[in-house]
């Protein structure tokens, strides 16, 4: 028999593992956000950069302090960076940097760590940060500048909602992103690039953005038919506002979206329905943020009622 020293390592099967890990996946999310980041800085210049840096730095610092206080190890630094980036992307580029930092800290401390940290939070932290800022600083949060002349202007959805006399931007402009709006949401093209990358890397399920955007399109197309306006109307609703950013980067957040396939379709469709409801009937011109947050609440319920049938079993509900 062998000596103790000669014994081999005994481990539980399986003895192989895919190279995937959480930090690598989160790094991919950051890579996917780079096109929108470039677009944001290109269109909104220094103010946008300031807001982004402020959000990311304060999110990272808040994460560090939280973990330090709780005597936990920092295992996943990318997660806080993503929260900071996503929050920055849905803020106006002219927002004072201290407000941006405050929102970021709120997102990390309240929305993430008070709920138990990564994996335990119910709401998307970045969206909670944005909601907090909108409730606290309603004027600063709704002051928009045009990337063309730097002058204050309404957002596209705002123009439509208030039936303002301004000229609506063209669909082409909306797609490219040189319009006023939150700093990271204006370029549908840049967000789509990042979203496709995440789909390609299999980090997100097409079901959520698919059903989300699809629902908005269908409901808005019906509305257009009722109103007697053309196809530009639903397309305008797709490309204006934060729909693509929300659908590809926020509704797909692993932690706060359903884990079943059917659940993801319900979740996305629910988000889409709420966006349409808020945009058409609500007080705000935009509804992506609250739509996703409301569906976040429904996630555990959706999961419970969409459990898959076990192999060889009959369909049953828990």
């Amino acid at each position, binding site marked *: 028999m062998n000596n103790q020293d000669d014994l*081999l390592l005994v481990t539980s099967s399986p*003895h192989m593992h895919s190279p995937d890990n959480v930090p690598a996946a989160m790094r991919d999310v950051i890579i996917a956000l780079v096109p929108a980041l470039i677009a944001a800085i290109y269109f909104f210049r220094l103010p946008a950069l300031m807001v982004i840096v402020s959000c990311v730095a304060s999110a990272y610092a808040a994460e560090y302090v939280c973990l330090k206080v709780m005597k936990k190890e920092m295992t996943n630094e990318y997660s806080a960076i993503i929260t900071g980036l996503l929050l920055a992307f849905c803020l106006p580029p002219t927002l004072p940097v201290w407000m941006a930092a405050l929102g970021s800290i709120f997102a990390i401390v309240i929305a993430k760590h008070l709920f138990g940290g990564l994996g335990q939070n119910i709401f998307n932290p970045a969206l909670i940060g944005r909601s907090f800022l909108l409730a606290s600083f309603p004027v600063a949060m709704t002051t928009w500048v045009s990337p063309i002349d730097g002058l204050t202007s309404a957002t596209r959805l705002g123009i439509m909602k208030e039936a303002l006399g301004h000229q609506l931007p063209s669909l082409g402009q909306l797609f490219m992103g040189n319009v006023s709006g939150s700093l990271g949401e204006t370029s549908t093209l840049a967000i789509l690039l990042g979203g496709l990358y995440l789909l390609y890397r299999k980090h997100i399920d097409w079901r959520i953005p698919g059903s989300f955007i699809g629902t908005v399109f269908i409901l808005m197309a019906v509305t257009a038919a009722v109103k007697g306006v053309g196809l530009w109307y639903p397309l305008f609703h797709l490309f204006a506002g934060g729909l693509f950013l929300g659908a590809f980067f926020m509704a797909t957040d692993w932690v706060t979206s359903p884990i079943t396939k059917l659940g993801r379709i319900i979740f996305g469709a629910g988000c889409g329905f709420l966006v349409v409801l808020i945009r058409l009937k609500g007080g705000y011109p935009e509804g992506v943020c609250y739509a996703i947050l409301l569906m976040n609440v429904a996630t555990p319920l959706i999961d419970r009622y969409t459990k898959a049938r076990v*192999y060889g079993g009959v369909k049953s509900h828990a």
Partner: protein
Amino acid sequence: MKKATFKGGIHLAGFKELTSGKETVPAPIPERVYIPLSQHIGAPCAPLVVVGAQVKKGQRIGEGKGFVSSPIHASVSGKVIAIETREHPGGSFVPCVVIENNGREEWDETVRPAGDPARLDSEQLRRIISDAGIVGLGGATFPAHVKYAPVEGKKVETVILNGVECEPYITADHRLMLEKADRIVAGLGYIMRSVCCEKGVIAIEDNKMDAVSVMEKAAAGKNIRVVVLKEKYPQGSEKQLISACTGKEVPVGGLPLDVGVIVNNVGTAAAIADAVEKGIPLIERYVTISGPGIREPANYLVRIGTLFSELIARSGGYNGEPERIIAGGPMMGKTVFSDDVPVVKGSSGIVVYHKEDKKAQREYSCVRCAKCIDVCPAFLEPTSLAKMAKRGAWEEAEMGNVMSCIECGSCVFSCPAQIPLIEYIRRAKQAVLAAKAKAKAA
């Protein structure tokens, strides 16, 4: 042709090219063999020999009580020098009969054909299979004759031979199909006759197209069909194989027989052919020895009871310093404490990793990415089950169908948080079983 498959599962790097092109060679017959008295699922055997006894090749040396058991035979001729407790590749310690080989290779008198194979009826065939100690050679080692025993009200419609071999590195069945196709087809014929079934299927993954064509040729003109399946893990798992081949699902808690199917490994069929036609009991099998920690990966025809260390020496020894030795494949195989363990009936392969292969792994928090759910071939929620197990919610885990887990490891493989989901799930399964046993006793 559209290739059949199952729902869920993962794509693995196969590493099969290390050995798939190498013809099987007989491993050196050892000076001493160490034959465990428990090499099957069911009651362990009691020794039929005492220390000092002379035994011949093929002589029965262990026998178990009860129907679900399988006898054990000497794999060499020689003298019993000890009956001692040793490590079994399954992880436990069991009594082993140690035989010193006299090198004469004398067959026992009982090793002879029972009669004209063409005229044996189903009951006679089952008796021969039982007497020859034949168990499932895919690794589960379930006694074959028990599987074939008729069950009131259930008819076997299809016998499926499993030639999938979805574990990375292992190519023993692949080589067997290439080298002994006729034995496999003959064995399948005997199985079909023993269960009175008209339809035979040989299922092979599309990464072994050479075996497909060889088996098709061997099966030509018989009521046996070769089915090509898509390469995906765990295609070789019994339930997933049945779904891919028949489109049916084995009901929860049920047996393949409930959907009219019996599944056997191709190696089992070949062993049955030898037992029926020549009277030879199960004393040797094909074993793949591979992995980055082995100098010369190879396939061997190995006598049961040969130590892993001898096969490793035959393969040029270790490449670097060994860190883990896996009995079986890397997905479902078990690591052993040392190379001082014998090859048993269920040993399909030995995979060695050396120290350089170990990557530091750490467990992160679950981020609910649901990759485990997407890949689970039993359609479970491994992450939810693991969380239930963590807080001891055994009843909830049972409601979540934890007992349907086949422990294929696909979830752990795919988990980006590197959570050992399967360890939590095993814990829950044990607790559920214990609670059931307690309820039964009360």
